């Protein structure tokens, strides 16, 4: 399995801190391609540096560390402070994702109730009152469906972003995603789970 790559970096301003790699990574001494037997790039030389920088190849195993590139090239953490800030941001993003799910479910239920309520017709005659309600299909061009679609797109994008953040294999970021999801679920699900709202529907 190839786990070595050289990326010639056109953004020459950034020093990836090859020399200042002083994280708490216990495997700092190990170089790339450890343990691999037939690695064809084992002998690759750093001589073609020419003042350009190379990206560290992604460590495809769980590691702790402070140096990480998150989602975008410009979002790099070099210090503990930057990593803590990024973790907090990811935590909030994961919590908001849970809130978005609750919002979508709430809007969907509200729209369905309104549709059902609007479709009740009652006809008054002398002898009796008849109520008929037609089954109303959710219209494709209704405003509620449009909003649901928009929120769906946002939900898909955010969920893939969270997956990509987890894919950095950085334990601190993974913890931020997991705990953010749990906290968001707890906070945004509180009302539906705990508050007994008799106005919604009979349980």
């Amino acid at each position: 399995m190839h786990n070595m790559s050289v990326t010639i970096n056109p953004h020459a301003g950034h020093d990836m801190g090859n020399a200042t790699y002083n994280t708490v990574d216990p495997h700092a001494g190990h170089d790339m391609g450890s343990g691999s037997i037939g690695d064809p790039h084992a002998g690759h030389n750093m001589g073609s540096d020419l003042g350009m920088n190379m990206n560290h190849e992604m460590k495809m195993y769980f590691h702790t560390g402070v140096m990480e590139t998150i989602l975008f090239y410009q979002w790099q953490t070099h210090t503990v402070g930057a990593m803590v800030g990024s973790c907090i941001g990811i935590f909030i993003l994961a919590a908001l994702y849970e809130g978005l799910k609750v919002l979508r479910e709430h809007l969907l239920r509200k729209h369905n109730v309104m549709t059902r309520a609007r479709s009740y017709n009652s006809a008054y005659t002398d002898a009796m009152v008849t109520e008929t309600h037609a089954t109303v299909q959710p219209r494709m061009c209704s405003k509620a469906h449009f909003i649901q679609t928009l929120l769906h797109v946002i939900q898909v994008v955010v969920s893939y972003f969270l997956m990509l953040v987890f894919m950095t294999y950085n334990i601190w970021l993974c913890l931020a995603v997991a705990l953010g999801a749990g906290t968001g679920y707890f906070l945004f699900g509180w009302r539906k789970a705990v508050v007994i709202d008799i106005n919604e529907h009979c349980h």
Partner: protein
Amino acid sequence: MMGMYFEFKDSLHNFLIYGWNTSTLSSFLVIIAVCFALALLIEAGRALHSILSHRANLSPLVYAKTSRNVAETTPLLRSLIIPTNVDQIVKRKIKYHIGMSLLHVAKVVVAYVVMLAVMSYNAWVFVTVVIGSALGYLIFGAIQHKITTADTPDTHVINNQDDMLGTHSQTSYEPIG
């Protein structure tokens, strides 16, 4: 970067944890067994979530919780027992909600770890995860269905309403969780 294509290799290199390599077939099979168990866990977590949310929404008349701790089991007497105060019900719901939040965290972690396992692009791991998910859904889905649609006389109406509202919360697209 590693090759971005599936291949049938019976060796794994730095699988999820640094230094987790396989040199023999038996160690590879251990990793396959772990992936299989993780896929089963995903389905188990999903089923458990559904069961817990169903139990949490049961009407107090069904589980007949009173402060007097009377073990009345006949439906007639149970319908006469009314919980003494709403606080008790709220406390019970809070406990269920905390438990389900913790379950949610576990579900998220396991789902992401399985995603990373599949990302190793090892075809054997992928096939194992698929088979594990299928078996998990078969086993735990059956259990979940049996528990959440229990057709006992006094829970009959309530369970129908739960089905209408959608106890299985897969109405929205959630790739993970």
